[in-house]
């Protein structure tokens, strides 16, 4: 581990460490009544990892069914429930809470704040997730089974479903409320609680990307809440927002859903960009290239995300002018995204790079996410999209940006920051095994889906003709290997880390890493920065 240096750092503020454990509660009360941002961050991360595993099991059931033509394990009704719940659980239960977990852990430390702005609301935000998660999963055991209209919960399918739809709507409402409260907390913490000497334009990129993400969340989560409330009133209270039988319009639901749904895509990727922007400079041992342009690029992506929702709806009978507008607006997003990709590459250019696991995942992210970005451009072209709409090409595209994008960035972030969280170093060998195993099996799973989609295989079907058999078999084998890789990660990396097994982590485990998180001991004391630290001119070091 060439980059692991042990600098015994002594700072005046390290007297915080002496307070460690002073006010630290113990037993179940520590977690149920948690108001400490680090504890709540841990709770979020454990919850999202659990949901990731659950969503992964659903994915493997889907892949098992699709291993060969004909019906093997599940009937078509259950298959539709599996695809729907896999999407909902992964988006709302795994990826979003995981990034909130990262935010809870790292934002107060990175900006030199003592905690999140609203500590008790933070507790409430987390504990809302549990009933919501239970409700979503419990729908499988309700009469008629879980919702099966796809994660996009399109009307009029949702108007025709059984009582599980109401439970899912309630669960989504709760998750939305949790997200909005979490976002308010993050915005207020960042805007109002930064240490003196840290202007916005010297803030770590992870905080910047989360600040922008939080504004996106506040803008669009209420829109989703509105859409599902209208679905609920259509189902039970005699309204006809989306019900054609009463003069409503199902396409209206799609407009409202995707006005939420497309910014949601960026909600799931912007914090990932932030993590990568922290890791690449650390392991290239250079400052981030084009910090200011990174901030503006992130903001541009956020603004543009509000005017591209129509590209999800090219086959709904849009006028040509509308198709052209959404096509070009979507392509415009490639510009700020490319700014970010090129800035990461420029940061690496002629840097003294080493490839510890966080950097491997970061480079893997850049490479595979860019492939997902390119297929996104292909999907953005209206004439092409009309052909590949709802085919496996789209499935391949969004798994390239969400799995190899968001999930890889989270793995990178875990390996990068876990020494600070757990106080022990993970095993570099195990980390590298996890990376290569995931990278290869991910591509084996999802790359063939491009071919399946181009050949015309539609998504959300339990069966397919013989001509699609070979690529489906390959994708299923890859899927199981990818799933096992994540079980390996949990059993041999996460659990040993949580148990404190491994070499003690130094305060500053990565010699090229900058930021206030590396100014405090490992593991991070229960309370940090109770008095605002004095920062140097770069706002990355504490002045004694």
């Amino acid at each position, binding site marked *: 581990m060439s980059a692991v240096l042990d600098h015994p750092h002594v700072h005046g503020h390290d007297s915080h460490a002496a307070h460690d454990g002073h006010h630290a509660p113990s037993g179940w009360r520590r977690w149920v009544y948690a108001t400490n941002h680090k504890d709540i961050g841990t709770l979020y991360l454990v919850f999202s990892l659990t949901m990731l595993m659950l969503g992964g099991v659903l994915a493997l059931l889907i892949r098992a069914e699709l291993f060969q033509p004909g019906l093997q394990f599940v009937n078509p009704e259950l298959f539709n429930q599996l695809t729907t719940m896999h999407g909902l659980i992964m988006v709302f239960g795994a990826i979003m809470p995981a990034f909130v977990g990262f935010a809870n852990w790292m934002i107060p430390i990175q900006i030199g704040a003592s905690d999140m702005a609203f500590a008790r609301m933070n507790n409430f935000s987390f504990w809302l997730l549990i009933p919501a998660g239970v409700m979503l999963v419990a729908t499988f055991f309700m009469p008629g089974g879980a919702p099966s209209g796809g994660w996009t919960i399109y009307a009029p399918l949702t108007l025709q479903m059984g009582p599980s739809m109401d439970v899912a709507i309630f669960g989504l409402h709760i998750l939305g409320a949790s997200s909005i409260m979490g976002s308010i907390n993050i915005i207020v913490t960042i805007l109002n609680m930064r240490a003196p000497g840290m202007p916005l334009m010297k803030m770590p990129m992870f905080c910047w990307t989360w600040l922008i993400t939080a504004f996106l969340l506040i803008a669009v989560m209420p829109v989703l809440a509105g859409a599902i409330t209208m679905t609920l009133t259509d189902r039970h209270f005699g309204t006809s*927002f989306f019900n054609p039988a009463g003069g409503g319009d199902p396409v209206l639901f799609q407009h409202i859903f995707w006005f939420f749904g497309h910014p949601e895509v960026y909600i799931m990727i912007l914090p990932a960009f932030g993590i990568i922007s922290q890791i690449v400079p650390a392991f290239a041992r250079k400052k981030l290239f084009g910090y200011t342009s990174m901030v503006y690029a992130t903001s541009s992506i956020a603004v543009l995300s509000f005017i591209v929702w129509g590209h999800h709806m090219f086959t709904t009978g849009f006028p040509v002018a509308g198709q052209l507008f959404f096509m070009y607006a979507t392509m415009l997003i490639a510009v700020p995204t490319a700014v970010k990709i090129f800035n990461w590459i420029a940061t690496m250019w002629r840097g003294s790079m080493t490839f510890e696991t966080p950097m491997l995942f970061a480079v893997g992210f850049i490479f595979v996410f860019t492939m997902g970005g390119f297929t996104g451009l292909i999907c953005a072209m209206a004439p092409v999209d009309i052909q590949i709409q709802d085919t496996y090409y789209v499935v391949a595209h969004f798994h390239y940006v969400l799995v190899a994008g968001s999930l890889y960035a989270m793995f990178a972030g875990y390996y990068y920051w876990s020494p600070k969280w757990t106080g022990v170093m993970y095993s570099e060998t195990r980390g590298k095994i996890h990376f290569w195993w995931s990278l290869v099996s991910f591509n084996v799973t999802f790359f063939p889906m491009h071919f399946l989609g181009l050949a015309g295989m539609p998504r959300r079907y339990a069966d397919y003709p013989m001509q699609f058999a070979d690529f489906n078999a390959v994708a299923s084998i890859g899927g199981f290997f990818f799933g096992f890789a994540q079980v390996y990660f949990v059993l041999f990396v996460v659990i040993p880390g949580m148990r404190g097994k491994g070499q003690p982590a130094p305060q500053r485990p990565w010699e090229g890493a900058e930021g206030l998180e590396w100014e405090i001991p490992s593991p991070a004391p229960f309370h940090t920065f109770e008095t605002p630290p004095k920062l140097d001119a770069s706002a990355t070091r504490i002045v004694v």
Partner: protein
Amino acid sequence: MDSHIESTIMRRDQKRSNRQIGITLGVIAMVFFFGCIARMALLGR
């Protein structure tokens, strides 16, 4: 001024402005939620 008093005042002021920003953002979220439904209910498509 005594540094303890100074930091207490600073924290109190910070809490107050935290609350102001938080409530503003919460109100904005509620306006979006009710606005979305009201727009569809009152104006239709």
